[in-house]
């Protein structure tokens, strides 16, 4: 299948590098990450603790503050250099062009303001509309996320966890940004609520056509939901490609290990091993391929040379010495 991506991607991240400066030395949280998101596309970013996935989201939104610094690379949104935006430009840029739903954002709603007020605030900060117009829009948004508009007057503590998360999504949608970043939006929710909200988000995406950068540690969520998946490990993308390709035929040993960590609901009970070892110490990451201490197929060369992303199948890239261009090891 020929990869048909429009000429200008919505978001282009090239060789992004983020470091956390600690007393013991710099921690390379993100070490040379590149990816693109096309308009209307859902890119899933999967990784565990220390992979750097949340850091990327914060870097794209320019939300990092010391001890984190962007040490290199570029972030372009619709051709604009995000890293060069002034504070003024950033204020206009955020929420209008890219909005973000944070992890347990439902707990970071302002407890002394009603939901309606918070949505109205977000709208009026960017658009010259009257309070009534903003309230009308807020009611529309609540309906869109499945909350009765009467709840506009409710305070966060009067809503359940699931409804609060929907309210947060409503706020993120308020200005209809072309790109929404969601950082573990459903992790704090029960599985039934999680499914409902995922369905809601998918329905909204299909209707309004925005792109999503969906960050999570739960790979199984991504397969149903995203167009492409990027798997991160120790600050790098180790595999990226179409969702069903990644799921059907994971190439990188880490991705394979992850797939081997989800017990199934049917079939005979087989023993799963997960991945032995622990996530790497980012203060002093392993030399060469960062996954080598935990890899079942490691060879001496892998401990010396860092692999780079190579296209192994159309649209499917892997950073692993076991694969050479177009050839499977």
């Amino acid at each position, binding site marked *: 299948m020929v990869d048909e991506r429009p000429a200008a991607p919505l978001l282009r991240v090239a060789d992004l590098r983020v470091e956390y400066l600690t007393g013991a030395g710099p921690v390379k949280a993100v070490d040379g990450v590149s990816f693109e998101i096309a308009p209307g596309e859902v890119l899933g970013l999967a990784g*565990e*603790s220390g992979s750097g996935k949340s850091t990327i989201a914060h870097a794209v939104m320019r939300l990092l503050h010391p001890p984190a610094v962007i040490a290199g690379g570029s972030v372009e949104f619709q051709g604009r250099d995000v890293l060069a935006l002034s504070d003024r430009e950033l204020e206009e840029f955020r929420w209008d062009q890219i909005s973000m739903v944070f992890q347990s954002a439902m707990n970071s709603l302002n407890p002394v303001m009603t939901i309606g007020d918070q949505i109205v605030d977000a709208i009026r900060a960017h658009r010259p509309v009257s309070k009534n117009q903003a309230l009308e829009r807020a009611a529309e948004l609540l309906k869109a996320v499945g909350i009765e508009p009467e709840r506009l007057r409710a305070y966060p503590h009067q809503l*359940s*966890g*699931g409804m609060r998360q929907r309210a947060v999504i409503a706020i993120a949608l308020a200005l209809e940004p072309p790109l929404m970043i969601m950082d573990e939006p459903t992790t704090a929710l*029960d*599985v*039934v*609520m*999680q*499914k*409902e909200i995922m*369905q809601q988000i998918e329905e909204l995406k299909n209707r309004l056509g925005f792109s999503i950068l969906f960050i999570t*540690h*739960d*790979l*199984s*969520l991504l*397969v*149903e939901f995203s167009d492409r998946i990027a798997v991160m490990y120790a600050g790098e993308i180790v595999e990226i490609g179409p969702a069903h390709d990644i*799921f059907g035929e994971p190439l990188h040993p*880490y991705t394979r*290990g*992850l797939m*081997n*960590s*989800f*017990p*199934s*609901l*049917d079939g*005979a*009970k*087989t*023993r*799963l*091993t*997960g*991945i*032995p070892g*622990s*996530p790497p110490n980012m203060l002093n990451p392993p030399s060469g391929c960062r996954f080598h201490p935990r890899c079942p197929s490691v060879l001496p060369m892998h401990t010396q040379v860092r692999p780079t992303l190579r296209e192994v199948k159309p649209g499917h890239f892997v950073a692993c010495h076991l694969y050479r261009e177009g050839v499977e090891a």
Partner: protein
Amino acid sequence: MTAPAPAPPPGPVALEAKSLSKRFPIGGLFSKREVHALTDVSVTLRRGHVVSLVGESGSGKSTTARLIARLMPPTAGEIFYGGKDVLKSEPSHASLAYRGDVQMIFQDPFGSLNGSHTIQHHLERPLRIHKKVRGEEIKDRVDELLATVGLNPPRDFADKYPHQLSGGQRQRVAFARALAVEPTVVLADEPISMLDVSIRMGVLNLMEQLKEERGLAYLYITHDIASARYIGDEIVVMYAGRMVESGPSVELIAEPAHPYTKLLLSAVPNPKAAKRGVTARGEIPSLIDPPPGCPFAARCPAVMDVCRKVIPGPIVVGPNHWVRCHLYSPGAAVAV
């Protein structure tokens, strides 16, 4: 993948909880409102056997574990251990013998270890309290325990503080601490839900290995029904403080009876299955002074009038498989 060995028959009963209930009074001096956290929950734990307690938040699964661990007294019910109801024989606080036999693993690997003390201290205390070994043998025993849970070299880990270990390593330390007293019952309250995905299986496999080596009786509490099936011999589904279904894990998931169990299964991300929506909407009801009848009545797609009035007793639908649902009453018009 190795072929699964046939499950050994469950061993003798280690502990039996009967009709546990827990209510928390809320409101001030003059308000008589109560949160019905747990109502009429019974669990039998056998050696070499894992009972998985599955439910969402507010289902009462953690409360069940805390009651059996005797961290708080139940409002009603009995706990049979060593042939006696310990709530009657040692009412004010649990005896050392009970504490030496019933241990608990907590959900938060960081919160369950005291950041001010070394790992050595964490493992030494239970050994000393229960006088498991003589003073000069403590160091060796600590090393042994650490090696058993896969933390090698043991001395390196013993001298460290909790913040120097990863989440998975801390959870292994929690297991080592529990094993120090040589228990028969281990209550594991969501032991892997706060760990990275890739290391969860390692911890579950460790649990399984310890069960086989030592004949432990496990109560495994989780919201993840897939892991409940993986490690559990038996699954108990809880909703709003009550048990709604119970049966052998593989069969229960293959043929769920209770509408809530079906809802739970439909919501689990399953890339292999065809895309479908959840089978019911709505949210978990409030546990404060709940109305009579089945707690799932408000959301159940197959609700009947009787459901709102009375909750049915357990109805057998298969070998060792029962459900509390009027749809299965003898004489019910439709059995789903």
